[in-house]
Each structure stands twice: as C-alpha cells, then as structure tokens.
C-alpha cells in the first residue's frame, strides 16, 4: 500500500518538475525572465506547502503569514551575515520561526474547522500584516531593503523540486494516508484511534515549514520585501492554486500556481482586477464541478 501511494505521489510531481525545468530553461534568460521564473517556482513551492494542509480537507487563508515569517527572518539574518552561510542560517531561522508560529497558532486555530477555520486563519494573516506594518525593527510599512539577491532560476528550481519531493514523500507515507483518512471523516477517524487534532497540527506545521522556506527565497529575488507582499492576496493566490489544481494532489496546485504567476506576468493589466478574475474562476469552477462540490465540498 505504501509503495503504491508513493508511486502515485511521485507520478503526480514528475511531469510538473519537468515542466518547471523546461520553463526555467526557456524563460530563465535575462534579468526579467529569471525573476519571472523565480516567482513562478516560489509561488508553486508555497502552494505545495498549503496543499499539505488542504489535503486534510481544511482551507487556510493565513499561510501568507508563514511565508512572511520565512522571508523576514531570512532577510534579517542574510543581510547581516555575509555569504552563503548567512543565507542558509536565514532560511533555517525562517523555517524555525514558522514552525513555532504554526504550533502556537495551530493550537488555537485547529479547534475550528471548515469555514470557521478559514475565517480565523484570515484573522491570523491580517494580524501578521498589521504587525509587519507597525514594527520598525523589520522596516514597517516601507519594507526591508538590502537583502542579498541570492534567488536565481537554478536554486529556486532546486527549492521547487525539494518542496515537491517532501510533499510527495509525505503523501506516500503512513502520515499522508492518515491525513487522507482525517480529510474523509474526522469523527470516524477518531473512532478508530486517530488523534485528529495531533494529525492536523502536524500537517499544519509541515505545511508552514515548506511555505516559510519558499518565503525565505522570495526576498532573494528583488532584494526587497514589504508587508504588501504577504497580505491576504498572497494567501488567496495560494488557496486558489490549491483549489484549481486539486487539493492533496501536490502536482496540480504547483502547476496552477506557476500558470497563474505566468498569466499575470504576460498580462500585467489583468493583475489589478485579479480578485475579480479569481472570483469568476471560483464561480466557474463551482459550476463545472457542482456535483463534486455538493457531495464532498471543495
């Protein structure tokens, strides 16, 4: 069973990794192309992170806060410690900060489920934004400058493959199987000995960890980050990729995130009314999959 699930999980990510590799080779030339590829791959990695939690059948609108934790921690440390050791230390610190934040917030948030959890996580995201905007130590509303520009198509592709592999390994593991069981029916899962809350907190933490790692790379694209980069729109971007790509499939959300990023890069005039486009996309999806939504939820 484990091997069957692992094979299925890796079959899901292999074509997406190949597509990402080709995109990196084709578009990754020139400064703008390289930035676009980095943004595509980082968004896809963040979506992969959220997908682990969405695989539990739960929706979070607060994952931007974990990306911010990763980005700000990495930016603060790498800006003060020169060289690759500073970047590595920054990424590690960002991941650790996100784990801590996920454990603390998850303890309270994960008592909720469904719409209530989505709304509470939105509150977490907004709290994060207000904190970032009003804390001078991390640059306040103006943001942080002077971050080493270490993110390039090659290392973001490595990040992409790493995140995809972690998600595929998780999905193919016993923990992934237990997560799918919890997603199907929490009370039935509880009746057969599964500690549902513990499973949720573990998945939430792993999910935050991957999102934060990708967030750490985000600051390395432009050398600058601000609270605007990690507002609710970022959470919605991730969530939309997961819904469009298919929650729990890893490859689907990653591909959807890449395509969304590319779409707005090629059609910049569409970026401003993106929330209208997202709303229309969700309405279309709901109509197209109405039977599935009616039976199983999103």
């Amino acid at each position, binding site marked *: 069973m484990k091997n069957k699930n692992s094979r299925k999980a890796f079959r899901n990510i292999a074509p997406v990794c190949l597509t990402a590799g080709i995109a990196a080779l084709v578009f990754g030339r020139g400064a703008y192309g390289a930035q676009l590829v980095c943004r595509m791959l980082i968004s896809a990695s963040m979506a992969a992170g959220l997908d682990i939690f969405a695989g539990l059948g739960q929706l979070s609108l607060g994952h931007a806060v974990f990306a911010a934790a990763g980005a700000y921690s990495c930016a603060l440390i790498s800006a003060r410690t020169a060289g690759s050791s500073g970047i590595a230390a920054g990424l590690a610190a960002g991941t650790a900060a996100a784990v801590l934040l996920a454990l603390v917030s998850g303890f309270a948030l994960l008592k909720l489920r469904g719409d209530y959890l989505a709304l509470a996580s939105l509150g977490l995201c907004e709290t994060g934004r207000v904190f970032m905007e009003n804390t001078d130590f991390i640059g306040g509303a103006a943001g942080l400058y002077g971050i080493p520009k270490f993110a390039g198509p090659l290392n973001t592709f490595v990040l992409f493959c790493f995140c995809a592999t972690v998600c595929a390994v998780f999905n193919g593991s016993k923990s992934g199987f237990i997560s799918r069981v919890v997603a199907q*029916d929490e009370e*039935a899962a509880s009746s057969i*000995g599964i500690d549902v809350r513990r499973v949720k907190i573990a998945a939430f933490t792993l999910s935050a960890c991957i999102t934060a790692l990708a967030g750490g790379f985000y600051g390395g694209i432009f050398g600058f980050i601000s609270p605007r980069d990690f507002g609710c729109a970022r959470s919605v971007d991730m969530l939309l990729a997961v819904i469009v790509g298919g929650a729990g499939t890893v490859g689907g959300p990653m591909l959807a995130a890449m395509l969304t990023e590319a779409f707005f890069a090629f059609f910049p005039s569409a970026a401003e009314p993106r929330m209208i486009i997202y709303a229309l996309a969700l309405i279309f999806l709901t109509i197209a999959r109405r039977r599935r939504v009616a039976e199983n939820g999103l």
Partner: protein
Amino acid sequence: MLKCENLCKSYGGISAVSGVNLYIKQGESVGLIGSNGAGKTSLFNLLAGFEKPDKGEIFLIRGGEKTKLNGLPPHARIKFGIGRTFQNLRLFKDMSVHENILAGALGNGQNPDCCLHLLEELGLFPLKDAKAGSLPYGSRKTVEIARSLASGAKLLLLDEPAAGLSETEALYLAGKLKKLRQEKNLTLLLIEHNMDFICGLCDRLYAMDSGRIVAEGRPRSVLHSPAVIDTVFGGAPYVFA
C-alpha cells in the same frame, strides 16, 4: 468489562440520559432497545467518548483493574479496546474497502497484516478494491464492523447494525457477529429496533425510555415486561416472527 454509574447527559435542559446504571461482562452480548429519542445513541456517544457526561462515571474493568474512562476522547478509548460503528454509516467513502480496514489498523497502531485476514473472514475479499461508497448497504455495514475490528476493538458498540438490511442480510450479519464473538472473544453492546435480530444475538437487554433504563434482563422477559410493552411497543405485546 464496562460499568456505568448514574450517567447523566442533558442538551439545553432536555435530559437525554438520566441516571443510567449499566454493566457488561467480558464476552457478553448486550442489547439496548427503546423508541426513537429514548436516549440510546446519546448513551453510546457517552460510552464511546463522543460526548462528555454531565454526571456519573464510566469504568472499564479488566483483570480486576478498574479504569475510569470519563474525559477520555474517542481515540484514547480505542486504546482500551472500545470501538464503535455509527447509526448513519461513516465509512471513508472515497477509499477502497481495503484502505478503510487498513485505516482502522494503522489508526490504532495495529499490525496491517490483520486486514487481509479480516477481509477474508467477513467475506469482503472480492470487494477489497471497490470504493466503499459504491458498495451495497449491507456490505458497507460489514466494512464498518471490519474497520472497527481492525482497530483492535474488543468491546464493540454497534449502533443499529441491522437497520436498512433485508431479512436475509440481517440473518447473515447476525451469524457473522455470533461467529466473531466466539472466535475473537468479543463483547458486544448493540442498539437495535429489529427485535428478532437482537433476541437471536443478545444474552441480555436493557430497555430505555426518556433517558432512563426501564427494564433489564433476559431478552424475552424484557420484551414482555409491562414497561417495555407500554413505552417501546405502544401498548401491544411484541409478536416474534
């Protein structure tokens, strides 16, 4: 094996379970009957840990050792061998039959090898790759029982196992449960409205009305008791098929 003392549970001032005392011996098969709304499922939820009692205590007695179960969540109660099925089937419907049973084994840290044995024992082996949601109702009931057994349940709380089954299916299920009880030394507590089914399977019955136990004893004596005739059968004595 299981003992409840003065168990009480109210919902918004309405008493669902009121001062229930109940005991079940190891290896015994006990039935719980009563009209709709009598408090049977509420009592089940208290025993399985899905609800917390307002008052009273639940004990598990094993080898002379008495363990208090109050406050333990459902996933912790299965560690003590208390498993349950649901009145409205709650299978993992997008998963195969095998995966459903495997979930039971893995959920409680049991050996996954027991799954294939259980599939064969309960006649589910030919259906092992079928999606649980696509099965006929009778087979789904059996899968839910198999899943609970895979999780290591020794005291099985069955909520209306024969509901919705044809007479033949109910007879088949009763036979299976009898066999499993003997082979695995299971203790059964079941809620049922099918009196022929419950009398064929149970050593003792409890009858409930308005959250209280109104009769207790051997099945036929309980069914003929005036309190049960009055509250469960609406005044007319039950006639066996």
